[in-house]
């Protein structure tokens, strides 16, 4: 009868972090930490990644980044989606094998494998999953080569669509402090017209410190910076 729009995602600010902690508490019952983290997330990392908003959320300031980094112990990433005009500081809430899942306070997540995009949730037009092929190995070894990758999305009918890409990975100069190697991945769609170019700054241990990566037709490119591993 009545149209009810569910306000849940807005109401449950910080719920994901709280939830994670509630579960940890169940098993290990170390109090305090959960609520502190929860409060922390509320205070400093409230930037919601919002699709299509005209003004966009306030930028995360360097001071905020430092404050968060000083207080929490989890891995932290600063992520920026220029196409949807939004950015956020995201912190690790889960790890499954090589894939780390990072979250905003507004129950949005980004999953990265050594900084490489494996998925996103709650951003609208999400990258549902991706198969990176040999890319992680090439990045870790800072070697060039040709790789194949598959990226999967949901269409307007909620059906899975799969894009296949052939990508040329090249290694550029090593420079800067800390010293990083610039790597570029140029991808063109197989049986399609899409193409994108990702770039990665890889440190001496083969870990991605900074990147520009394509997250799909809706989200466009993401700029990431690993604040802490």
């Amino acid at each position, binding site marked *: 009868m009545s149209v*009810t729009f569910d306000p849940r995602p807005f109401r449950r600010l910080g*719920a994901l972090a709280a939830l994670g902690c509630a579960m940890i508490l*169940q098993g290990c019952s170390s109090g305090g930490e959960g609520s502190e983290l929860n409060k922390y997330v509320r205070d400093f990392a409230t930037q919601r990644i919002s699709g299509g908003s005209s003004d966009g959320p306030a930028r995360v300031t360097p001071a905020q980044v430092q404050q968060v980094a000083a207080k929490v112990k989890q891995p932290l990433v600063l992520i920026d989606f220029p196409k949807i005009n939004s950015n956020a500081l995201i912190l690790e809430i889960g790890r499954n094998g090589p894939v780390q899942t990072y979250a905003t306070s507004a129950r949005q997540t980004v999953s990265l494998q050594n900084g490489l995009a494996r998925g996103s949730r709650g951003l609208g037009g999400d990258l549902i*999953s991706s198969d990176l092929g040999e890319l992680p190995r090439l990045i870790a070894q800072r070697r060039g080569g040709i790789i194949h990758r598959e990226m999967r999305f949901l269409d307007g009918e*909620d059906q899975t669509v799969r894009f296949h890409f052939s990508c040329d990975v090249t290694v550029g100069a090593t420079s800067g402090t800390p010293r990083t190697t610039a790597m570029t991945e140029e991808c063109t769609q197989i049986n399609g017209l899409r193409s994108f170019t990702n770039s990665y700054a890889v440190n001496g241990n083969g870990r991605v410190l900074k990147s520009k990566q394509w997250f799909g037709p809706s989200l466009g490119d993401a700029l990431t910076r690993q604040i802490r591993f």
Partner: protein
Amino acid sequence: MPRSLRTTLRGSAAALLTGLIVFPSVGAQAESIPSHNLYGVPGLIDMPTANVAPDATLSTTLGAVGDQGRATLNFQITPRLSGSFRYSRIDNFPVPGAVDGVYYDRSFDLRFQLLKEGDYLPSVVVGLQDFIGTGLYGGEYLVATKEVFPGLEVTGGVGWGRLGSRDPFAETGHRPREILGEGGLPTYDRWFRGDAAGFGGLSYAPNDRLRFSAEYSSDTYTAERANGEHDDDSPWNLGIDYRFKNGAQLSLYHAYGNSVGAQLTMHTNPRKARVPGGAESAPVPVAPRAKGASRDLGWVGNSTTGYRNSLNTAMTNDGLVLEGLKLEPHTATVRLRNPRFGAVPQAIGRTARAMTRTLPASIETFVIVPMVDGMALSAVTLKRSDLEALEHEDNADILARTAITDGFGRAPTPFDDQYPTFGWAIAPYLQFSFFDPENPLRADLGMRASASYRPTANFVISGSVTKKLTGNLSDIDRVDDDALPLVRTEKARYSAEGDPAIEHLTVAHYGRPGRNFYSRVTAGYLEEMYAGVSGELLWKPVDSRLALGAEVNYVKPRDFDQLFGLRSSETRTGRIPDVNGHVSAYYDFGNGFHGQLDVGRFLAGDYGATVTVDREFANGWRVGAYATVTDVPFEDFGEGSFDKGIRITIPLSTVSGQPSTERSDFVIQSLTRDGGARLNVNGRLYEQVRGYHQPDMAKTWGKFWR
């Protein structure tokens, strides 16, 4: 014949709102949608072209020129086939059936693309215009369109009937003028018969926004000139289209050499969602177990309340209800109720994620049993190690390792604190009736109070009461000359006297009498006009695309005031039988089409069948049509000959971007008559059950990890 022109549109305020929000929106395909004409089909001005809209495009056109006003809903049923429903108004047309010189008519069109445009060949479309009914707009055509230069299209065609009335160059047989049956039957005896004439035109689009059109019309408006005030001064019509950013088309025309016209066409497409994949918040990550932890059985034998509580917290966060839980050393069975996710796999996926985070490490097998009205609709079995391994993989991988089996006997008993439950709501409602010739839009506004009480999981006692605040629905003053008992046509009296009205007040029981079987018994005030008992049995194997059902109803008509009284079954035109019912077959063709056949005895005691075909989309959209034919002779049924209509279902989630189990149904039906009428009882089984079965879940499985 004005009585056949009124069409009712059933729907809630949500349906209307949804419609208003949805219909103007369109996806990125806007540029490839061809210009539509005044008849609301791809065309120039009054003439059709052979252009074809992208598959599943749903277009609404409002157009007026001279004395003609037309509202058309056009749907691209398949990539080549499209269908239209049109409601039109002709001023200054005092023919029988007109009210104060204004004539209303409904019409249906079909178009089929015979040939797709190639490098050298044009697109070719064959069309039937107003092919059911009185045939005022009746005409057939064969038309070809070719883009000869970027933006420049040339169209030429041959028309019959109305489209063959100007300078015919040939005659193909005899075109009868008599109406078949009582109007409402396909006019197959006329198709492509009689005079044939040529039409054609040009259109040029210098950019994405503008299009200029010129056409030579083969329609001389013979009937309008003979009976009305139409002047056919020129066969040449001119037009200009403006295309908005969202794809909507606004057109201005100069037609017949003497009139101006305007048109607005809006497009939507069920295959487009506002936010692809939805905008809802993220699920919690899978929590993989530490190596070797699965051997730890230390928890067995101890209290499991803690596990229950943490799982409950996690599921509540996702809007899911943990109704029961059974923990065994290596298996956990969850009794799930899903009030939130229209895509069932999403509810299953989120429950499974929560289970990985909360349950003891030794538990390897997850069985999730989704419940609706106390019926275990299926049992979804997942391996925890698969969930851990496939969290970031293709969703097809986890589907291949998921077993969806019959839920019969699989559900744990609900926790003691789950039942009884009580719920209530008070909300405004809007009820509409469109297309009455004396008042094309009628509406009632009021308040509705509803409540439900569930003493156990399987019993529902529910009711709703309405109080009208304002409206004019009850002003309808039709008198019917049916040969059937008045089972539906006293609607106006119910509407006038039922204030306040008890819409329904029933006790219902739902159950699983055995494997593959589902049951419902409903007793009480079943709907606004009937009270009694309704029983239903459904056979639906969990992996089957076929379902069979049977329903038997014993009913007595309710008093017009819609309170607690009953009235005699005797009506002016006969006695309403006590017993009606159907056997039904439902079949999911698997290619996006779904069919339903109901055979049985209708409310008025007439025997017959209803055939329904829907185009269904995985996100929950449906566009379909139905027809009911009974043993009532067409002349006894009255105008329209038999019941037919169009129905559209819009899931709220595709509009809001947020998950929801709520959907809005629009039914555009011919005038409600007494033949082929069914009881409107709540809670019919098939729609409740099918979403939780394998074929439907496989379609929406992309939402499992979402």
